[in-house]
């Protein structure tokens, strides 16, 4: 009988930048059952809908944000055989090129790692209580939710 997969989970909301190599090392260190690690990093872009972004401010609902991410990480673990999941979401004020979010998934096989990372990103976009405010040439304003993000999240709904 195969031994059950143990999945290590790290969830952090922080102002500081993250170090992808360090986070991958923490996830895979002294384990030899991981065959695939997928990382997604979301970065502040200078151009959003053709406006020139000078800075981006991320606001969040502290206690709920962590609980909401944890619920989705638990859901991902129940759907795919994962060895490890790390989600780090930064808050504060960012310049173009700055890291905003990191999702790491580790599994025996690549499909599970890819699917879980996409699932977590789709839900972070639409369901985790974070809000972006942009400062651009056109002024300062809150980013509007995108229909395409709701559509991306909807594909994971189980009937």
């Amino acid at each position: 009988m195969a031994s059950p997969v143990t999945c290590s989970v790290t969830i952090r909301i922080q102002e500081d930048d993250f170090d992808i190599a360090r986070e991958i090392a923490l996830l895979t260190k002294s384990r030899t059952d991981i065959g695939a690690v997928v990382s997604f990093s979301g970065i502040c872009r200078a151009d959003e809908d053709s406006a020139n972004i000078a800075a981006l401010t991320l606001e969040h609902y502290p206690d709920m944000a962590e609980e909401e991410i944890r619920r989705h990480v638990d859901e991902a673990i129940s759907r795919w055989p994962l060895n490890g999941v790390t989600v780090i979401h930064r808050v504060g004020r960012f310049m173009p090129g700055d890291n905003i979010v990191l999702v790491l998934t580790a599994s025996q096989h690549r499909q599970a790692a890819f699917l879980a990372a996409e699932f977590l990103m789709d839900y972070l976009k639409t369901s985790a209580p974070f809000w972006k405010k942009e400062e651009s040439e056109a002024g300062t304003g809150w980013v509007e939710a995108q229909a395409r993000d709701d559509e991306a999240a909807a594909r994971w709904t189980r009937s």
Partner: protein
Amino acid sequence: MKVKYFAWVRERVGKAEETIEPPATVHTVAELIAWLSSRSEAYAYAFEKPKVIRAAIDRAHVKSDATITGAREIAFFPPMTGG
């Protein structure tokens, strides 16, 4: 009960949180939004499009017909744009 506001809801209401005591006739999230909107122009502006507003009770997403009975913390905010 404690109420929290985020993003442009917070900016329009003009505060991040407050403690309120809605009348006993207010049972649901939608009714609470209507009651808050009646308090001042700032609230009316924040909640002018109630369908856009998202709500959470005790840190879990709820729909507008959810009951607020027993809630300790209710939060109002626009659709999320993290990630």
